[in-house]
């Protein structure tokens, strides 16, 4: 006799079960189970993972869900047919869309309407029948059972019997068996599985505590009585149900009856509406050739051949409608004046270039089309669109909803998992660890999930939890098990899924936290696995800044066409070579700035390489130093294999791009296009190391069979592994380099517009507005303070190198208030402060903020005078509103603010200062401390002290525990490197102090200056205003 578990829950039941679907499948496979039914709570969140891992393990994945009913009971249902699946998804969508997140309840009448194709179980303790038996006795249970019977009928209702070796359960089971027999219903053995193996039971207890906001010590009988709710194989279940063999037998029968799996989802992408007489293919062809003519002038030769080849393949794979839809979305964005640019592998396609989806000419850049689309490809190619972040992107998203309906399109989910610091904190609380230890732990490991150089146990010891703590081992073991389990469902940054007809027939939709958006229950990997199409509408802060800068230039009568910028501007490359890149897209990080003077980019392609090279992939693959040395002639250019020369020539024999790996696999390993595509997916699939390992092994064999030498194989396979850690496709690097180049060009030629646009599009980039302003000042841009008589809402350029800060920069002043101010000023300028106060409807705090920021100086003389006067104004309904408070302002008895007071007021009200850097005031107190600019004159190896506001703290996973700190002073930026040991000693000081004094040895490698820190201390006595810093991995 075989046994199939038909009522399993995974961790996608969110805090109700403790194993991933993959773990359940693995265990089911080990137990020899032919199928496994997953019934997560109110959704099919884990169904795809179960399906995909089931395919690999030979376990048939059956889809189901537990439905929370209007009376609070929980009905498990299994999907028997595709119609049933569609009905279930529709039902769940209806329930989720009408309620707050997690609050949806299914009405009994709704279930009665949607039951076709579903098989119901009577459920466990929370089920309607057993719940009623406990609460109201046998009669109540019978009534609940009769209701299920009326809805599902005898053929589709199973009476679920569970045995968990709990005293008293047989009394209940006797009732259930008797009732089933009396009504002619089949009984079904299940184990109501909550975890894969017995040892995972603790995770369920911890989740129970998290759900009930309690601790393990206080949870009492809410915890599991024993650890019997794990997957059990046929022998064990047969022994358990020796007196009811049909209960076990029925599991196999029912599994056999279920014809639906996710293999036959039936998803179809929508067609694009085309003119009469046109097909999807013909219309795409027409629009592509038209676009190509615009791009290339004439469509002949190479261009013609490539386009024809691509169009033929697109038509053959049935993707024409998809290209048309993306083209249409780009057109929609452009018609509304929005920048839009395709990124990623789409830039490898000449069709995408012709349609205006991408901005990179793949023929000129010799990009590999197969990276984007190939004959053997079964899934949809990626076309990701970069849009200005904010309103313009939201406009396009809402347009997609408008076109396809709330049930026809949805955002992709993003599964937020338990990770690092947050796991320790949450689980530690459940274990009853003291708050102060957990707080200290959080502070020690401040700034996100910084990769740590010390083990978790040691970290906890430093936080005050001794090694001998009686619960430490259990905590560490539980954290290890909890890590990677889903915590909640978020929203992908921009992935929208579309379908022909209702998307909610293929996957349930829910309300996203953001109003006006819905999200589906699967993440991007699930979407890809199910062959569904996702269009990424990604918001880029820099796109918004470019858009803003272009508009500023146009308003000033100096229009800029970003598509036609000369790509060989010497001034731009000079600036890049000098690493003068604050504010420039992708190359402004400390790591990028350290590489630029060594890289010395001279061409646009060099910039693309620069963008791609400082990524975890190339860094882990040891590609960076060889490339830079070869470039500077310190090392000869060699190739792992002579056949690799044409592929690696442009990158000096070093593998930098994903396309190169694919081409090497094809050229040196004899991979077909389909195999190369499989390789691409393995690289991009972050969930399964096994999948990548299998591909590596295949590739190794293929290289060996084709006579590639062992050292070359080792090098190439290492490169492949490193790309799984995030490496760029060449096309993507080129697309990003376009944006980087455009931003650099603006910084050189329109610095006013450049800085104004960056300020207007915050938050974005690595640096705070305060740092951007200081950088602007060093580039000759002057910043004028906010002024109610002169400022616009946003920052504006007055003269080539003068930026007037916008009124929206003032913290605590509503946008609506700014609009009302501008409207009043538009009618006529403010004659006096009294006139201003009477005509603009502002709150008291807003009046104070404007006065404190100096925005009323033009009307009041100075800030104190303004602050004195605004307090005398008591609102629009002030009985004395006809008196002119400005007259009193002239008689203000208050002294003007000192420079230091103005500085603090600036940071209080604006988080920045348009004036000098605060360090200028502190400088007289810093004897023997070098300025950032002064470091250039210090010989390498000399001991030096630097001091400044911390503007970045970075501890990348690739840096083996080293920490990189950037300090800002009145002359520029100074970088320090902190060794792991010093970092651990001074962790709190580094993480928490806003200003640091660092002593260490100066290193100068080809113009790249660092201080190797030896001593670090905080500088609270300087009294500098606190500046925001960006802390990241």
């Amino acid at each position, binding site marked *: 006799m075989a046994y199939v578990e038909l009522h399993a829950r995974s961790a996608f039941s969110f805090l109700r079960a403790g194993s991933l679907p993959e773990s359940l499948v693995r265990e089911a496979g080990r137990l020899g189970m032919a199928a496994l039914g997953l019934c997560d709570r109110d959704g099919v969140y884990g169904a795809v993972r179960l399906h995909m891992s089931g395919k690999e393990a030979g376990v048939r994945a059956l889809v189901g869900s537990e439905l929370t009913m209007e009376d609070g009971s929980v009905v498990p249902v299994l999907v028997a047919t595709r119609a049933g699946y569609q009905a279930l998804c529709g039902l769940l969508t209806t329930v989720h869309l009408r309620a707050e997140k997690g609050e949806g309840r299914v009405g009994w009448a709704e279930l009665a309407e949607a039951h076709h194709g579903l098989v119901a179980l009577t459920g466990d303790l929370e089920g309607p029948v057993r719940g009623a038996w406990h609460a109201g006795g046998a009669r109540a249970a019978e009534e609940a059972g009769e209701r299920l019977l009326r809805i599902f009928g005898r053929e589709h209702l199973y009476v679920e019997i569970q045995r968990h070796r709990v005293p008293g359960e047989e009394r209940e089971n006797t009732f259930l068996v008797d009732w089933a027999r009396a009504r002619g219903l089949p009984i079904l053995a299940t184990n109501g599985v909550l975890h894969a193996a017995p040892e995972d039971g*603790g995770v369920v207890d911890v989740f129970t505590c998290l759900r009930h906001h309690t601790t393990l010590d206080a949870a009492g009988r809410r915890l599991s009585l024993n650890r019997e709710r794990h997957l059990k194989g046929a022998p064990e279940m047969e022994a358990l149900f020796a007196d009811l063999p049909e209960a076990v037998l029925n599991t196999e029968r029912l599994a056999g009856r279920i014809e639906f799996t996710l293999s036959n989802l039936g998803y179809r992408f929508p067609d694009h509406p085309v003119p009469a007489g046109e097909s999807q293919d013909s219309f795409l062809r027409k629009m592509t050739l038209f676009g190509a003519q615009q791009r290339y002038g004439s469509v002949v030769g190479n261009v013609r051949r490539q386009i024809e080849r691509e169009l033929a393949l697109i038509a053959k794979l049935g993707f024409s409608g998809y290209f048309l839809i993306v083209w249409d979305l780009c057109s929609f964005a452009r018609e509304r004046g929005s920048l839009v640019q395709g990124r990623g592998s789409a830039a490898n396609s000449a069709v995408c270039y012709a349609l205006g989806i991408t901005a990179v000419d793949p023929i000129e850049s010799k990009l590999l089309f197969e990276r984007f689309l190939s004959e053997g490809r079964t899934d949809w190619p990626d076309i990701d669109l970069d849009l200005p972040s904010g309103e313009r992107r939201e406009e396009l998203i809402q347009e997609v909803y408008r076109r396809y309906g709330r049930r026809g399109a949805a955002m992709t989910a993003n599964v937020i998992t338990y990770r690092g610091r947050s796991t320790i904190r949450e689980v530690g609380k459940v274990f009853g660890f003291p708050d102060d230890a957990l707080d*200290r732990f959080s*502070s020690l490991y401040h700034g996100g999930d910084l990769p740590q150089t010390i083990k978790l146990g040691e970290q906890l010891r430093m936080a005050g939890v001794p090694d001998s703590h009686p619960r430490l081992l259990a905590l560490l073991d539980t954290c290890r098990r909890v890590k990677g389990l889903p915590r909640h469902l978020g929203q992908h940054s921009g992935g929208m899924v579309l379908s022909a007809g209702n998307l909610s027939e293929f996957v349930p939709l829910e309300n996203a936290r953001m109003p006006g958006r819905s999200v589906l229950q699967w993440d991007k990997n699930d979407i890809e696995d199910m062959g569904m199409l996702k269009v990424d509408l990604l918001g880029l802060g820099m796109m918004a800044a470019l858009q803003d800068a272009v508009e500023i230039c146009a308003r000033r009568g100096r229009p800029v066409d970003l598509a036609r910028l000369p790509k060989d501007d010497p001034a731009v490359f000079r600036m890049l070579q000098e690493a003068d890149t604050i504010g420039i897209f992708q190359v402004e990080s400390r790591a990028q700035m350290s590489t630029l003077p060594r890289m010395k980019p001279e061409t646009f392609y060099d910039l693309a390489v620069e963008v791609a090279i400082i990524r975890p992939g190339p860094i882990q693959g040891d590609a960076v130093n060889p490339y830079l040395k070869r470039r500077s002639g310190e090392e000869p250019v060699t190739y792992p294999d002579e056949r690799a020369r044409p592929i690696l020539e442009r990158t000096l024999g070093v593998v930098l791009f994903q396309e190169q790996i694919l081409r090497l696999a094809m050229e040196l390993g004899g991979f077909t296009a389909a195999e190369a595509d499989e390789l691409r997916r393995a690289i991009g699939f972050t969930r399964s190391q096994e999948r990548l390992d299998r591909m590596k092994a295949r590739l190794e064999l293929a290289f060996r069979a084709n006579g590639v030498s062992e050292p070359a194989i080792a090098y190439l396979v290492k490169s492949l592994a490193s790309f799984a850690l995030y490496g760029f496709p060449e096309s993507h690097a080129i697309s990003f380099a376009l944006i980087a180049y455009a931003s650099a060009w603006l910084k050189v030629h329109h610095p006013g517009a450049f800085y104004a646009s960056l300020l207007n599009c915050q938050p974005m980039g690595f640096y705070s507005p305060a740092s951007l302003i200081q950088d602007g000042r060093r580039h000759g841009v002057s910043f004028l303070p906010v002024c109610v008589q002169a400022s616009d809402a946003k920052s504006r350029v007055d003269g080539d190198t003068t930026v007037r800060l916008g009124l929206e920069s003032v913290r605590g002043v509503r946008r609506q208030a700014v609009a009302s101010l501008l409207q009043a000023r538009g009618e006529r300028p403010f004659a006096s402060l009294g006139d201003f106060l009477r005509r603009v409807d502002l709150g008291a705090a807003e009046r*104070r903020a404007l006065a404190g920021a100096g925005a009323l100086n033009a009307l009041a003389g100075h800030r104190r005078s303004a602050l004195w006067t605004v307090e*005398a104004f008591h609102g629009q309904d002030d009985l004395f509103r006809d008196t002119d408070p400005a007259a009193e302002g002239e008689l203000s008895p208050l002294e003007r*603010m000192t420079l230091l*007071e103005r500085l603090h007021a600036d940071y209080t009200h604006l988080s920045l200062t348009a004036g000098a850097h605060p360090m200028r005031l502190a400088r007289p107190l810093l004897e023997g401390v070098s300025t950032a600019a002064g470091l250039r004159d210090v010989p390498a190896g000399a001991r030096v002290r630097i001091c400044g506001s911390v503007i970045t703290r970075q501890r990348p996973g690739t840096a083996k525990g080293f920490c990189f700190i950037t300090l800002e002073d009145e002359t520029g930026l100074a970088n320090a490197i902190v060794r792991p040991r010093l970092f651990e000693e001074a962790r709190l000081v580094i993480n928490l102090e806003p200003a640091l004094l660092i002593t260490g040895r100066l290193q100068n490698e080809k113009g790249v200056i660092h201080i190797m820190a030896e001593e670090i201390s905080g500088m*609270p006595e300087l009294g500098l205003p606190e500046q925001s810093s960006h802390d990241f991995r």
Partner: protein
Amino acid sequence: MNYAVLLVPDFALRALQRSDPSLAGRAVALVAGEGRTARVTEASAEARGVAPGLAATLAMSRCPGIVLRQREPESEVEAHRLLLAAAFTLSPRVESTGSGSCTVDLRGADRTRTEALMRLRAAELAASGLPPRIGAGATPLLAAYAARCAEPVLVVDDAAEFLKPLPLSFAAPAPGQEAILRGWGIMTLGGLTALSKAEVGARMGSEGVLLWERAAGETNRVLRLVEPARSFAAQWAYEPPVESTEPLLFKMRRFAERIALELRGAGMVAEKLSLTLLLEDETDHRREFRLPEPGADVEGWLRVLGGHLATVRTEARVTGVRLVAAPARPPEMQEGLFDTGLRDGASFWENLARVAAIVGDDRVGTPELLDTHRPDAFVMRRPLESVTPRLAEPVHPACGPTLRRFRPPWPVEVSCEGGMPARLEGGRLEGRVRAALGPWRASGDWWKPENWEQETWQVELSGGGIYQIARSAGAWRVEGMLD
């Protein structure tokens, strides 16, 4: 000099340090708030770079080894009573103004004598770990301002000159007022009073006017007087309990200092001391000492108490201590009029405690099931003083045989066949198993070292009788018999 204010800066911290000798000489800070929002409220001089308002985490970074503690209300109550006792030696009209602060009405007192007395009290309080600042002035407000500036005693005669340079915070502006005034650059009381009162009122309303008046020292008020101590007792609970006499002696000194001052303030002396040690086993150790000579001499008292504590041995650790001084001139009262027949109303509980001392704490009281899956887990609670309402009838009343539990369970050897009990041997029960039902499994407390796991069976023996047996930690026990 109409009023004096006795003020202990960083009172909560001082009170804590005074009560915990282990904090002496160490960098200590008090924090308020939970988690990452925790901020320092008071810091000792040793805590360099740490100031009120600083995040607790930042305090840890700036001052490695700093001890961060929450406020301890019991210590503050004890310290405040000492301060009040000192105040009552200056005048019988005393207001308990706030935690660590009291105001004394000195009107009619001799200035020279009072000033000398203030200096003496300041020295005594400082020696007792509670260094005060004592200020005197024409109004309670001025005296309070003076106290904040005193080192340790300051008498203000020229109010206007004194007030001018004082920081604005002396006048206790509300946060909103403070923000406005900071914006105006007003940092001192003189800065505020330099502005026209009417103009301040026009901008900050009536609250602004009150603030201005406080800045000008114009505010006067009537004191809310408190009664001097009527009983001369002190008590302290130790958490965790103590085993040595050192902490007891330390606490005795603190108690004695305060009680002696209270007696002096009331013009009395002690003739008898009563010492009670409360023990962890809920018993206590009591001893009365008739003083050889009635008085308020702290050192004399400590000699008596210390001599006894040096020899005393208790069965359990000390959880609390109480010291009561019987005044030499007891208040006149009619004894016995309101006495009940029961001289000790809690004799029932005392008797219960005595029984518990004999049979063990865990065997006296009313059993109450614990909220755990652990079989038969219960705790004995104090008997309830009221009868609880009867629970609703269960939906599924218990049925089947009743388990008669053996207490304690009988150890037994069990041989198993095919994973089921087959024979019971040894101990008080032997026989072949005719039928077995089970197992039922339970486990829990997996996160603790004392985690447990139990497997339970019901077995019918061939010689008759149905028993419940259980295996836990590898050993079998007969839990009871099924009737």
